[in-house]
C-alpha cells in the first residue's frame, strides 16, 4: 500500500516529488536545448532511439511528479492549472516546448545571425542565412514599382499629406466634430483624388469643361433652393438629363477652355506599382465600395419589389464569382462593352471591378446590421414624422453601422489581402514586383527572402487593422 502511495504524488511528501519532478523536467529541457543550440547530445551513450525519446519520457515523468493538487505553492498551482492538468495536456505542452526550442536556432540564424545585410550586390550573400541585401537593393522597386526614381518624392509627399489630412479627426474640437462625417465622406476623398490625379499621375492640366458639366453643376446648386416636395425628383432627373442633353445632343463634346497648366511629368499608371499601388487601390476601393454597398443593402430591404430583386441579383452575382474572374472580365470583356474610341485606364478598370466586388460583401454586412435593429427603432422614427431618407440617415444607419464595425473591418481586410490579384490585369503591386524581381538573372534564388519580406509587411498592416477595428468596436459599444 505504501508503495502505491509512493508513486502517487500528493501533499504528504510534497518536497520529494517537487524536487524530483522539477529536476527531471529541467533535465529534459536542458537536453533539448543543448542539442538544439550547441548540437551537443548529452545522452549519446544511449541507443539512438532511446536518446531521441528520452527528453519526452523524462519530461513526462517530471510533469507527472509535480502535478500535485492544492500544493499550497502559488506558482506551482498556476503552472499545473495552465499547462499540466492531465497526462494528455502534459505531453502536448512538452511537445510544444520542445518544438519552440528546436525551431528557434535555425530561424534565428536564417533571419539574423547568418544573414547578410551589407553591400549592394549578390556577392555578399554567401552565408547560409537570408540575403537582406536583395531586399535593400530592390527596396525602391518593391515600394514604388517602376515609378521613376527622381519622381518618387511625389508619392511620398502625397501619402504624408493624405495621412496628415486623414488624422484631422483626432484633433478636431467639439465645435467641428459635427462636420467630420461630411469631411471624411465627401471632402477627403475628393482631396485624395486630386492628389493622386495631379501629383502621382501628373501631366499637363487642362481646365476644360463641356457645357453639359457646367449646366449640371449649376442645376445642382439651384436644386438646393427648390421646395422640399419636388427636391427628390429634381435631383433624380434634372442634372443628369441636362448633362446628357447638352453633351451629346446640342453641344456635342464642345469644350470651354479655361486654362492650361504644364504640371508635373506624366507617369502612366502602368509604371505605378509596389506597396504604394497596394495603398492606392485599397484606398479607392474602400471609398467606392462603401456607398455602393450601403445603397444595395438598403435596396435589398426596400419595399419596392423591383428594386429589391435588382439588388438581390447584384449582390448574389458578385458574391458568387471569384475575384480573379471579375478582374479577367474587366481586362478582356469590359473593353468590348464600351464605345470604340472610349478608353478607360486599366488601373481604373481594376478599381471599378474590385469596388463592385467588395461592395456586394459590404452590402451583406450592412444588411446584417439593418436586420439586427429592433422594429421599434423604425416605428419610433416614423412616428416622429420622419421620411425614408431622414429615418435612415439620422436613426437607422448610425446604429446599424455601429453594429457591423467588425464585419466591415473584415471586409476591408479581405480587400487589402485581395489587392495582389491585380496581376491579372498586368499591374504589379508588391507581390507582383517580387515575382518580377526573382526572375531577374542577376538576383536568382532569393524568392524566400522576398516572400518573407512581403508577408511581414502585409501581416503588420492586416494585424494593425484588425486590432484597430477591435478598439473601434469597444469604443462604440453602447448598451442597448
Amino acid at each position, binding site marked *: 500500500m505504501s508503495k502505491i502511495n509512493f508513486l502517487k504524488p500528493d501533499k504528504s511528501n510534497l518536497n520529494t516529488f517537487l524536487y524530483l519532478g522539477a529536476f527531471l523536467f529541467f533535465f529534459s529541457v536542458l537536453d533539448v536545448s543543448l542539442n538544439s543550440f550547441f548540437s551537443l547530445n548529452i545522452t549519446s551513450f544511449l541507443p539512438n532511439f532511446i536518446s531521441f525519446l528520452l527528453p519526452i519520457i523524462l519530461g513526462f515523468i517530471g510533469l507527472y511528479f509535480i502535478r500535485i493538487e492544492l500544493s499550497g505553492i502559488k506558482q506551482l498551482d498556476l503552472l499545473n*492549472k*495552465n*499547462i499540466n*492538468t492531465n497526462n494528455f*495536456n502534459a505531453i*502536448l*505542452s512538452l511537445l*510544444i*516546448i520542445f518544438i519552440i526550442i528546436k525551431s528557434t536556432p535555425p530561424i534565428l540564424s536564417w533571419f539574423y545571425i547568418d544573414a547578410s545585410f551589407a553591400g549592394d550586390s549578390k556577392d555578399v550573400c554567401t552565408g547560409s542565412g537570408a540575403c537582406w541585401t536583395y531586399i535593400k537593393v530592390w527596396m525602391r522597386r518593391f515600394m514604388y514599382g517602376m515609378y521613376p526614381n527622381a519622381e518618387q518624392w511625389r508619392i511620398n509627399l502625397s501619402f504624408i499629406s493624405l495621412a496628415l489630412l486623414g488624422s484631422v479627426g483626432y484633433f478636431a474640437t467639439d465645435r467641428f466634430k459635427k462636420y467630420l462625417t461630411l469631411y471624411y465622406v465627401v471632402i477627403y476623398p475628393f482631396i485624395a483624388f486630386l492628389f493622386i490625379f495631379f501629383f502621382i499621375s501628373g501631366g499637363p492640366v487642362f481646365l476644360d469643361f463641356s457645357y453639359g458639366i457646367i449646366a449640371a453643376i449649376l442645376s445642382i446648386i439651384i436644386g438646393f433652393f427648390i421646395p422640399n416636395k419636388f427636391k427628390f*425628383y429634381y435631383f*433624380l*432627373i434634372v442634372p443628369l438629363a441636362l448633362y446628357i442633353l447638352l453633351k451629346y445632343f446640342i453641344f456635342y463634346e464642345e469644350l470651354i477652355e479655361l486654362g492650361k497648366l504644364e504640371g508635373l511629368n506624366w507617369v502612366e499608371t502602368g509604371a505605378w506599382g509596389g506597396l504604394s499601388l497596394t495603398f492606392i487601390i485599397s484606398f479607392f476601393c474602400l471609398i467606392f465600395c462603401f456607398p455602393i454597398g450601403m445603397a444595395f443593402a438598403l435596396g435589398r430591404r426596400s419595399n*419596392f*419589389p*423591383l*428594386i429589391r430583386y*435588382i439588388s438581390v441579383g447584384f449582390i*448574389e*452575382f458578385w*458574391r*458568387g*464569382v*471569384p*475575384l*480573379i*474572374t471579375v478582374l*479577367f*472580365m474587366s481586362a*478582356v*470583356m469590359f*473593353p*468590348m*462593352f*464600351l*464605345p*470604340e474610341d472610349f478608353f478607360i485606364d486599366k488601373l481604373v478598370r481594376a478599381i471599378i471591378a474590385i469596388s463592385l466586388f467588395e461592395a456586394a460583401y459590404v452590402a451583406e454586412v450592412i444588411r446584417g446590421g439593418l436586420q439586427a435593429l429592433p422594429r421599434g427603432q423604425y416605428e419610433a422614427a416614423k412616428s416622429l414624422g420622419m421620411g425614408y431618407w431622414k429615418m435612415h440617415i439620422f436613426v437607422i444607419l448610425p446604429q446599424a453601422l455601429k453594429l457591423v464595425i467588425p464585419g466591415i473591418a473584415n471586409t476591408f*481586410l479581405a480587400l*487589402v*489581402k*485581395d*489587392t*495582389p*490579384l491585380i*496581376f*491579372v490585369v498586368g499591374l504589379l503591386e508588391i*507581390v507582383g514586383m*517580387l*515575382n518580377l524581381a*526573382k526572375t531577374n538573372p542577376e538576383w536568382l534564388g532569393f*524568392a*524566400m527572402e522576398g*516572400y*518573407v519580406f*512581403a*508577408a511581414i509587411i*502585409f*501581416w503588420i498592416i*492586416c*494585424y494593425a487593422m*484588425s486590432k484597430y477595428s477591435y478598439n473601434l468596436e469597444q469604443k462604440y459599444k453602447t448598451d442597448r
Partner: protein
Amino acid sequence: MNFKLKDIVPQLVTVLAVVLIFGFFTYNAQVNMENRGIDFGYGFLSQESSFDVQFSLIEYDGSHSYFRAYLVGLLNTILVSVIGIILATILGVIVGIARLSPNYLINQFAAFYVEFFRNIPLLLQIFFWYFAALRALPLPQDAEPMFGISYLTIKGLFVPAFIWQNFNIFFYSVTAAIIAIIVIRTHAKKVQETQGKQIPVLLISIGLILILPLLSFLIGGVRLSFEVPVLKQLATTSFIYEGGVSLPPELIALTLSLSLYTATFIAECVRAGIQGVGKGQKEAAASIGLTPNQVLKLVVMPQALRIIIPPTTNQYLNLTKNSSLAAAIAYPDLVLVFAGTALMQTGKAIEIVSITMFTYLSLSVSISLLMNWYNRKIAITEK
C-alpha cells in the same frame, strides 16, 4: 394617385437605368464585334482545342474539343477544392478546439497560428509554398523514399497507385456498409428517444466499415496490389519517376496554402460555435445525470453545430472560389485552362468569361441553396 406615383417612379427609374446600361453595353459589344469581325456563339466548344494540359483527371490531349478542356479545368478545380475542404476542416476543427483548451501553451499556439496565417494574403502564401518552399525539395534522383514507397521531390509527390481487381464488388460492399450504418443510426436515435437506451453506434459502425470490405477481399475475389513509382532516366541529368500516381507541385502548393489559410477561418467558426453554447446548458445536462461524453454528444454538439455550420459552409464556398488563384502558379484549373489558354486561342472573350463566371455562380448558388435547406432543417422551432 400621388401615393401610387411615389411608389412607381423610383422603381421605374431604377429599372430604366439598368435596362439603359445593359442596352448600351450590348449595343457597343455588337458594334465592336462587327468591326473586329468576331461572331458571337458557343459553337467553338465542339471545335478541336489543339492545346495540351499538364495535369488532367480525364483523358485529354490537343485533339479533344474545347468542351473537354472545360471539363478538365472544372474537374481540376473540384479536385483541389475537395482536398482543400477536407484538410481545412480537419485542421480547422483541431485548431478551433485547441483555442479553447485550458492549456495555456496550446491555446496560445493555436491563436498564433490563426493570427499568423489569417493576416497574410492567400496569393502570397501560394507563391511562398510554390516558389520558395517546394523549390527547396530534392531533385528526383536525390530524393529519399518516404516509408519506402513514395517520393517527395521538386517535380511533385510520387505515390504508389492502387491496382484493383473486381473493384465493383469492393465498391458495393462499402456502399452496403454505409447504408447499414445509416439505418442503424436512425434506429439507435429512435430507440434513444423512445426508450432512453444507448446503442454503441460508433463501435458497430467501425466494425461494419471494416468487416464488410474485408469480407469482399476474402470471398468476393477482390485483389489489391500497388504499383510503386520507379526512377527513370530521361536524359543524362533529367530523371523522373514512372508508374504510380504523381501529384504535381502546383497541386501540393495550392492545397497546402488553401487549407492552411481556410483552416484559420474554420477554427474561428468552431470556437465561436462551442463558445456560443450557454454554460447553463452544460450544467443542466450534467445535473440530470448525463456523463461528460453524453453532454458533449447530445447537448453541446447539436447546438454548437447549428452555429458552426452556416459560416463554415461559407468558408467552403470561399475556398472553392479562392482555388481560382491556381492560375497564378499555372495549375490547370478552370480559370487557367478555359479563361486563360482557350480564351487566348479563340478570342471569344464574352462567351468564355461568361461561361466561367456562370460555372462558379452555379457552384456557389447550389452550395448556398443546400446550406439554406440545412439551416431550415436544424433551426430551432419555437413553440
